[in-house]
């Protein structure tokens, strides 16, 4: 209560002062200046306009006050407007400038007279506006250190009601209806052409060793080293093996160097140590051919290919066939035997 009373008394005092200061004129030899505020009471951080006006004859040289950041230490200028000069018919000027001001300190702030300096010294005294006052209210409770400082309150959670979604219901129904119509049109007119792959048989997965053996076979058939394309031959063999290692052992062999690949195999148990030795021989020879222009002997080239086949065959994952597949394979075999015996009898 005391606080409110204090505020009210402050407002009354400020209004008493401003009853003379809302519009202040200082005139001398037909020169008049005025300062006018939109309001004399603001909340802390609130903004109001302060308008300065100067009316003068054109033979007197008066300079408009240069206000940049602040009016007083408590009142800041947020934005300064442009000087607006109006030329009157009777040989007089009316110059105006507006300032958007604010304050972040609560209380009653005194605005001293704003001085307009006269350059020509004809008037013999300074021209200034009347003093004013601005009352700044703090609407928030002051922090009482004795009660302790508390955290900022979290935003309040607005309760959710299903009824809030009702307004979107026509839109949702409309979109569903539209989608239904579009689907109907597509199925009605293009239905036969739209391929339905839901029940299609997935493409068979080729095991990595099958791919690798096929690729090695292809390289062998191309007879690359026999045609002096040794680098291509070894690049093909090593790339095939690295692709195989990547798929079979899930080692990123394509992005690894020979040493790194060999290190990756350290934790893997092979049936025999020869496979890994063969791989090392191929990769090292490939590196020498690829990066050091090494030209291996024909026997070495053949050996590398044999070792590559050996590595893949020794490390491949044995396929476990399903019972039906086993049955089908056996039937096929029996049929083949029968066909052969029939043809021999004939």
């Amino acid at each position, binding site marked *: 209560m005391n606080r409110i009373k204090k505020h009210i008394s402050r407002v009354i005092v400020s209004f008493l002062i401003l009853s003379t200061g809302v519009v202040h004129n200082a005139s001398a030899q037909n020169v008049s200046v005025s300062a006018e505020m939109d309001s004399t009471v603001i909340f802390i951080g609130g903004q109001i306009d302060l308008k300065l006006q100067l009316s003068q004859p054109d033979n007197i040289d008066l300079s408009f006050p240069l206000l940049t950041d602040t009016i007083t230490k408590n009142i800041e200028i947020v934005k300064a407007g442009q000087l607006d000069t109006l030329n009157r018919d009777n040989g007089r000027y009316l110059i105006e400038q507006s300032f958007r001001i604010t304050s972040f300190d609560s209380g009653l702030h005194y605005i001293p007279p704003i001085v307009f300096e006269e350059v020509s010294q004809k008037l013999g005294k300074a021209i200034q506006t009347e003093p004013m006052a601005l009352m700044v209210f703090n609407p928030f409770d002051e922090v009482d250190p004795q009660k302790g400082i508390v955290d900022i309150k979290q935003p309040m959670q607005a309760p959710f009601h299903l009824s809030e979604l009702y307004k979107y219901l026509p839109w949702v129904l409309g979109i569903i209806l539209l989608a239904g119509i579009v689907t109907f049109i597509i199925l009605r007119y293009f239905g036969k052409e739209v391929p339905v792959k839901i029940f299609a048989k997935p493409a068979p997965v080729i095991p990595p060793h099958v791919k690798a053996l096929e690729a090695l076979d292809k390289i062998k058939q191309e007879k690359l080293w026999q045609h002096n394309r040794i680098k291509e031959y070894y*690049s093909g063999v090593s790339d095939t093996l690295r692709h195989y290692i990547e798929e079979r052992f899930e080692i*990123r062999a*394509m*992005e*690894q*160097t*020979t*040493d790194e690949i060999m290190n990756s195999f350290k934790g893997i148990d092979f049936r025999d140590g020869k496979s890994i030795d063969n791989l090392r021989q191929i990769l090292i020879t490939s*590196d020498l051919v*690829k*990066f*050091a*222009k*090494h*030209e291996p002997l024909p026997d070495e080239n053949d050996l590398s290919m044999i070792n590559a086949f050996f590595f893949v065959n020794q490390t491949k994952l044995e396929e476990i066939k399903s019972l039906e597949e086993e049955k089908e394979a056996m039937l096929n075999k029996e049929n083949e035997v029968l066909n052969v015996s029939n043809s021999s009898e004939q």
Partner: protein
Amino acid sequence: MEQSVDIKAINERIKEESSFVDLLTMEMNKVIVGQKHLVEGLLIGLLSDGHILLEGVPGLAKTLAINTLATIVDAKFSRIQFTPDLLPADLLGTMIYSQKKEEFIVKQGPIFTNFVLADEINRAPAKVQSALLEAMQERQVTIGETTYPLEEPFLVMATQNPIEQEGTYPLPEAQVDRFMLKLVLDYPKKDEEQMIIRHNLAKTFPKASTILKPEDIIRARQVVKDVYMDEKIEKYIVDITFATRYPEQYGLEKFKDMISYGASPRASISLSMASKAYAFIKRRGYVIPEDVRAICHDVLRHRIGLSYEAEANNITSEEIISEILNQVEVP
């Protein structure tokens, strides 16, 4: 067949010429305990005519390492402590008036030496940094109207302290790019530190012997240039550099917004040169992908600009390089 013979000859020559590497490393190891990476980096810089930026906390034997190297190579060495009030003339030299001769004479600065240790380079203002970096690039200094070539071999090892960044002048990207390698030093291991204590408490501190002449280094540099680099390795280097610029083309979309700028063509050149030097150190006459990968972090870590997003997500250039190496196909 003739090409094959050439490689064999290069291999033999390199095996012969690189015999000093073991001796040099041995001498270095007499004085420097641990810090193998630093010693290797110094050798790569020396052999590939590149400069080195070192980052590490004080007391990790940076000065001792370059001083020892200077002793081993019988070269001149100077240490310049970069401070905020250092002037380019303090580094390069200036013209002073000789009353005796009644004329201006040139007083050459400490840069006129073989090995320079620019200590805490980021403490000096940009004008001094750029004076040093220009001299590093041009290998010459102009004082007054005369241009003076710098001594050969010329190796600058600049240090940066990763802590105490207040009041420093971080090197601009364009200037950092002029360092071939950026080595990051770490603390020694427990047993190494124990050995360091013993070395320092002994009555006589181990001393390295002079085993080389600067001319030997210049000759070795020529041999390093002869190390064979196959077209496949060149493509691999280009792929790595391009992956820093356009990570999305190499399946690294996640880094697209993390990298503000990638490595420059100078990085590709440095990567090639440093790979050759590394192959030479390993006494090989040809470069293999292992060589490129071994020096890739040191060459690229200071050449990748990280965006604000990367910094906010604590992504470092080290991580980006490692990912690139894991993603780019090895030939």
